[in-house]
């Protein structure tokens, strides 16, 4: 059970392994403190509502916002036959955002992550895309025992519209379109990969939770226009 996600009023304290979060109320202001490894953030906050929301957000902000794309690589390639449609479960990295309740709902007060951070290149150096990188196992059922502070569950629908079987080693998403849902125990989202032709596949997200009664997370990039042409769908032209 994770007590971190949701709306909190001070005093609030969360300590687990590497992370220490404290929100205290002193002299009609909140004092927010976060410690993660050697990184310490202290912010006195003057707010009318004196409430803070902790929730998972798109993994694009840390260590630096340099891309809008997320590449998920499968540890074992998935083979899908011609004309088949199948939902599999994989994982994706999480960043945790702290929001003030009230004005500027998409502007986080703090951002941190416990997930491994790595970037990769999809395609070639001239026309390719720098992507946030994540390696995952795949499963036919919702994976258990995941740490919801580190990774979320992605229900990925794969459709092979070509006339031959295909091997899927990776999927690339325009993460500006991520629709993350969460509850106390898990974080999840629904995505899709449509294999259309040789070297032409398309990915996107569904605005639905993986299970009922999950809460929709705020989207930091909802209003920001994606640098990728075609909105929040990503066209994979350099292989899957």
């Amino acid at each position: 059970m994770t007590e971190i996600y949701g709306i909190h009023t001070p005093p609030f304290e969360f300590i687990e392994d590497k992370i220490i979060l404290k929100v205290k109320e002193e002299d009609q202001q909140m004092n927010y403190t976060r410690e993660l490894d050697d990184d310490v953030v202290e912010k006195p906050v003057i707010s009318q509502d004196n409430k803070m929301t902790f929730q998972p957000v798109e993994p694009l902000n840390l260590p630096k916002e340099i891309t809008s794309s997320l590449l998920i690589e499968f540890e074992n390639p998935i083979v899908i036959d011609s004309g088949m449609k199948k939902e599999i479960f994989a994982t994706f990295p999480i960043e945790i955002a702290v929001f003030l309740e009230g004005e500027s709902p998409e502007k986080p007060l703090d951002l941190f992550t416990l997930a491994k951070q790595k970037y990769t290149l999809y395609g070639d150096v001239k026309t390719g895309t720098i992507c946030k990188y994540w390696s995952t196992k795949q499963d036919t059922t919702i994976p258990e025992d995941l740490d919801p502070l580190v990774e979320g569950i992605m229900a990925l629908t794969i459709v092979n519209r070509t006339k031959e079987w295909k091997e899927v080693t990776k999927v690339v998403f325009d993460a500006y379109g991520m629709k993350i849902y969460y509850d106390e125990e898990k974080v999840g989202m629904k995505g899709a990969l449509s294999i259309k032709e040789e070297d032409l596949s398309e990915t996107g997200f569904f605005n639905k939770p993986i299970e009922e009664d999950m809460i929709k997370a705020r989207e930091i990039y909802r209003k920001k226009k994606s640098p990728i042409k075609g909105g929040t769908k990503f066209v994979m032209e350099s292989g899957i």
Partner: protein
Amino acid sequence: MLDRVLYGGVTLSDLLVSIIILFIAVIIGKAISLKIRHSLKDRVSKDRLNTISKFVYFLFLLVGFLIVLPILEFRISGFLVAGGILGIIIGFASQSIVTNLISGIFLTFERPFRVDDVVKLGGEDGILGVVEEIKIVSTTMRTFEGVYVRVPNEKVFTGNIINYLENIARRFEYDVGIRYKDDADEAMEIIKELIEEHPMALKNPEPQVFVESLGSSAVELKVRVWAPSTEWFPLRMELLWKIKKELEENGIQVPFNQQEVWFKNALHMEENEIT
């Protein structure tokens, strides 16, 4: 007073109307180009936005002039004749300006770099800096020492241009020497782990660590790492020192140059003679 004739049939009121029309054209042109800048700033690159907004502004100015000229009884045909003669005179007098102008137009179409790109103009020994503005006759840059540099477009267009941000990823490499008695496999493993741990060292294209040569004083390792072009320099600065420290913490040292000297005749020295 407003009916006072200035020349031909042009009165003072005509002149005032013309000034007002031009003023309105400037105001509308500025307002619309500003509006375009605001509405397109997230969708269009900075340099293209500059060109579009300037074009719109000058278009309004031109429309203003075209309205005003008949009011002031200027004949466009007369302008063309006068302009032709004037053009020849100006053409001879300002050859370099025209060359820069044409180079600027070609640069706009070819687009070898954009605003905010890190470029070196004039080849290897040229000017290195960040492009601030691509104007019609010159390109302005800010060097990393913070110096403002204006380069005529003719020099930009005819010289070599190295654009460090044109491709999205860039590679750098290190030569790391270790002692012969150190385990090269262990050293390579340590370096690979350090690269893997760093977020900005790209997973793909895969980094390479291998024994490059057996040198006179050290086993020379070659380390090749790809990084996003924007993060290339910070990563290159950071990683080398980390490699050195990590190798030393694991008992692997980067040796000094060594030379073994053999004497043809053995030196007969007592131990207590050595000072």
